[in-house]
């Protein structure tokens, strides 16, 4: 009984709070919703379900092991971001309409996670997607344009999903996901599903909204957009396209290659960006390309599907945690004009994303490798390699970048406390979704990472010499393709060799720094990598 109420409260509480918040003076009550969702993920026994026949055309909610993972980690991110929203200093984020739509998006997210029927899922997906418009919007021209483009893509995605649902319902005569598993899925429906969720996952060609949005919206919004909301697209595929149907195998092959294209496109464009948030945005596209490929693999190989999906969900959860945490950290970093402590946190997160041994990233990758029988080993390797390059680029850009964030006037105690939440999130993001003890040591990936990092700095040298030739795509790439492909200056600024001090901790640089950081960061990284290499040699495998 208690479990039932908790399950009902998971999506309904944020919905109710969304209506209450404009009337209340304090927004603290917001955190009630993600806390409830966390409790739901922890306390509700797996496979509990409820059926509410009066709602819509009869809704069926269920918490299976996949939704449990999604719910727990999404709720965690929603919790931390809620705290940031409550104590926000950004005028936009402080507005009650922002909070209201933030809660609505949360409600939609929770709903689609617990949904076991198409209508509830669609309701949640639509609610989440449309409400997000309001948390992207800012008064600036750029943000308005980004929000408009986002909305256009989202509407198209929703209608695609709507059509797919109509076709699915007509062929199966049921709105329950479990009934979809029994028969073939019409090709037209598959195409619309790939389109609908492909927009959320920014498949190549459907991606221009993403970099535009991520670079224009408040970073706290981006944290939820890139984490919980984006992964909803993957959940959609898992729910609507149960592997096993004959015709899905061909589609799986298509999706594998689409994903590879996304991975390449995202990685290459990420390296051409000169704004930290844009690099993270394109790295999301690359990662989602990998996710799409892996999902395509699960469709193409039904016999391995269960394992692949399980590993894929773990991988997605890791990305959800780290990417959200990165954006939250980036927000903090910019607000505080580049505080070193926060930079350290960002380095930790980046390393986990790269998949350094003993991190969740490496565990997720080996789980995937195992599940796919090593079939996609090359792709995983490529992705790890690209991620290492991208994250190095991100970190160095961050250090060279001028801090333009609106600095918080005076000392803000509340903001400090909120920052604590981020620090608490760090260890979870590092290991998550794995338990610290369960992560095995992977030596072979280490070499790859080392090569990538070396290559990065090598290219960086060469690149800066040829910097005028470096083509820089604006975030949103093909959106601008017809308007302005900009030939601007350096992705990477010419390095200044004057500074030395290999082992000093990086200091925040006041004002605009035309020179890049010293060798400190690469040095430290090299040091870390070498140490681990030595350890790996000492530890008998």
């Amino acid at each position, binding site marked *: 009984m208690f479990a039932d109420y908790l399950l009902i409260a998971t999506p309904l509480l944020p919905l109710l709070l969304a209506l209450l918040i404009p009337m209340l003076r304090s927004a603290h009550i917001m955190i009630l919703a993600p806390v409830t969702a966390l409790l739901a993920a922890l306390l509700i026994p797996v496979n509990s379900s409820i059926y509410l026949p009066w709602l*819509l*055309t009869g809704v069926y909610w269920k918490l299976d092991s996949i939704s449990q993972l999604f719910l727990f980690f999404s709720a965690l991110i929603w919790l931390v971001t809620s705290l940031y929203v409550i104590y926000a200093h950004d005028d936009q984020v402080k507005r009650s309409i922002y909070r209201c739509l933030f809660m609505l998006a949360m409600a939609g997210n929770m709903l689609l996670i617990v949904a076991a029927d198409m209508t509830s899922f*669609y309701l949640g997906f639509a609610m989440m997607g*449309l409400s997000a418009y309001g948390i992207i919007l800012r*008064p600036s021209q750029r943000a308005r344009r980004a929000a408009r483009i986002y909305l256009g893509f989202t509407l198209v995605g929703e*209608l695609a999903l*709507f059509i797919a649902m*109509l076709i699915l319902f007509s062929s199966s005569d049921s709105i329950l996901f479990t009934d979809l598993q029994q028969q073939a899925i019409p090709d037209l429906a598959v195409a619309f599903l790939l389109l609908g969720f492909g927009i959320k996952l920014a498949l190549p060609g459907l991606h221009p909204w993403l970099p535009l949005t991520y670079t224009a919206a408040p970073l706290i919004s981006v944290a939820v957009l890139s984490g919980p909301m984006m992964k909803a697209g993957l959940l959609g595929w898992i729910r609507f396209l149960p592997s096993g149907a004959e015709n899905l195998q061909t589609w799986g092959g298509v999706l594998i290659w689409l994903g590879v294209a996304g991975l390449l496109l995202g990685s290459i464009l990420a390296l051409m960006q000169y704004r930290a948030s844009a690099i993270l945005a394109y790295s999301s596209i690359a990662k989602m390309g990998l996710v799409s490929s892996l999902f395509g693999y699960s469709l193409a190989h039904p016999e391995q599907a269960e394992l692949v999906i399980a590993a894929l969900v773990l991988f997605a959860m890791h990305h959800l945690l780290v990417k959200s945490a990165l954006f939250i950290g980036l927000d903090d970093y910019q607000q505080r004009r580049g505080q070193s402590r926060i930079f350290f946190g960002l380095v930790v997160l980046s390393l986990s994303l790269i998949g350094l041994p003993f991190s969740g990233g490496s565990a997720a990758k080996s789980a995937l490798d195992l599940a796919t029988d090593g079939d996609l080993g090359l792709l995983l390797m490529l992705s790890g390699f690209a991620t290492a390059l991208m994250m190095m680029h991100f970190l160095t850009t961050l250090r060279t970048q001028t801090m333009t964030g609106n600095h918080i006037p005076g000392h803000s105690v509340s903001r400090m406390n909120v920052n604590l939440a981020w620090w608490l999130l760090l260890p979870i993001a590092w290991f998550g979704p794995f338990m610290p003890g369960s992560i095995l040591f992977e030596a072979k990936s280490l070499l790859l990472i080392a090569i990538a990092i070396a290559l990065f700095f090598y290219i960086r040298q060469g690149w800066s010499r040829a910097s005028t030739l470096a083509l820089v795509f604006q975030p949103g790439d093909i959106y601008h393709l017809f308007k302005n492909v900009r030939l601007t200056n350096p992705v990477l600024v010419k390095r200044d060799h004057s500074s030395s001090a290999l082992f000093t901790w990086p200091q925040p640089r006041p004002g605009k720094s035309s020179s890049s950081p010293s060798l400190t960061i690469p040095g430290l990284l090299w040091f870390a990598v070498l140490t681990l290499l030595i350890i790996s040699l000492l530890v008998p495998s």
Partner: protein
Amino acid sequence: MDIFDSLPLLILLSSLLPGLAIFLVREESHVLRTSLNLFGALTKLGLVGLMIWGVFHEWVSDMRWQIAPGLELVLHADALSVVFVTLSTVLWLVTTIYAIGYLEHSPHRSRFFGFFSLCVTATVGLALAGNLFTFVIFYELLTLATYPLVAHKGTPEAVRGARIYLTYTLGGGVLLLIGVVWLHTIAGPIDFQERGVLSDLTHLDPWTLRWIFLFMIIGLGVKAALFPLHGWLPQAMVAPAPVSALLHAVAVVKAGAFGIIRVVYDVFGVEYADALGLLPFLGAIAAFTIVYGSVKALSQDHLKRRLAYSTISQVSYIALGTAILGPLATIGGIVHLVHQGVMKITLFFAAGNYAETLGIHHVSEMDGVGRRMPATTLAFSIAALGMIGIPPIAGFISKWYLGLGALQAGAGLWVIPVLVASSLLNAAYFLPILYRAWFKPAVVKWPAEKPRSGRWEISGALMWPPVITAVLALLFGLFAGAPFSPLEWATLIATREY
């Protein structure tokens, strides 16, 4: 079950008698007029509640009066009439409250409310009409009762709009009458009957029937604002806001749509109409009107005009649902009769509130209006999102069933693109309004702001009606599966029609 048998008449009288009485009430007797209005509306609501119960258990029977040999006035309550009667009754009550607030201190209130009651009487009458003859009588009565309402303001513009309205609808009425008389001469008196009557009369020439259908659909299509007969609707928006609200949501436009449903289902029978090849014809017109209305709405800056074109588009969903063979499409069409009603009335109430309080008539003046009038704007937003078809608002349910019906009938290839295009277009003309209202900074000075009095953004009589109807739109969608929801009734009707 005596009370159940006389219910249709009682329901008619519950608005007719107060209406006639109001004509006699002196202009200043505000309290008496309001009491009469509310008494009528509430009584009718109670009676309709009884009727719902009666029809659900199939207790209600016909009432007949012979006028001439072979010509009978028939009042009859079936599941379909219940839907329309309930819609009119509930929305009439809400609109009456709104109109009382809206017309405070304006002249000719007794005339207004008198005709207002007559208008609702006519609407309920044609909902309860048991045969084509009775239907036509109430249909014409509706035209005449609405004319003074449209012209109410008495400005040259209002008179012109009302004149156009009258020209169109009287013309349509004539065509409908021709169709009805023709059918009467060849087939005798025709009572509405579930699954139709004409299919059993095999001696009739199919081509004659096709011509009769054409006449009837044109006659009804004028009120239902099917392209190219829609020209009067945007002109008629000169009427006061409560009239526009009623016109677009319940009375006139819906009377046409309801007539189309009656003719297709209960005269021809949907399967027979399909066999005659009439449904694709109706469907094509409806589909074109849906897209056409939305495209025209895009370019309107005048808020009420934009809403008027939106009505043209949305009401054709009903005709579309009727034109697709199969129970699911029927459900979609009939349920949209109710859903469009509650959503559109909300939009017009809100438009009236903006005009009344801030002097806003144009979309371009709506910047930041959400912060000045949050309740009204919230209601407007819910209704607008519902029109686009965003779940869980009522419009989604309509769209879902129409889409399923189209696939069931194998018409998915042309219906679904129409639905999708319409959704996108709806988004394109409603979302910019919402963006302006909620996200743009407010202008320094509103066009004609009235001083604020009382605790709400606007007087309660004007604020609550849109809020209530918006909540209804939300509940109809959210609790579509609950007993006695519009969807359940539409399902009941569909099972009785096939």
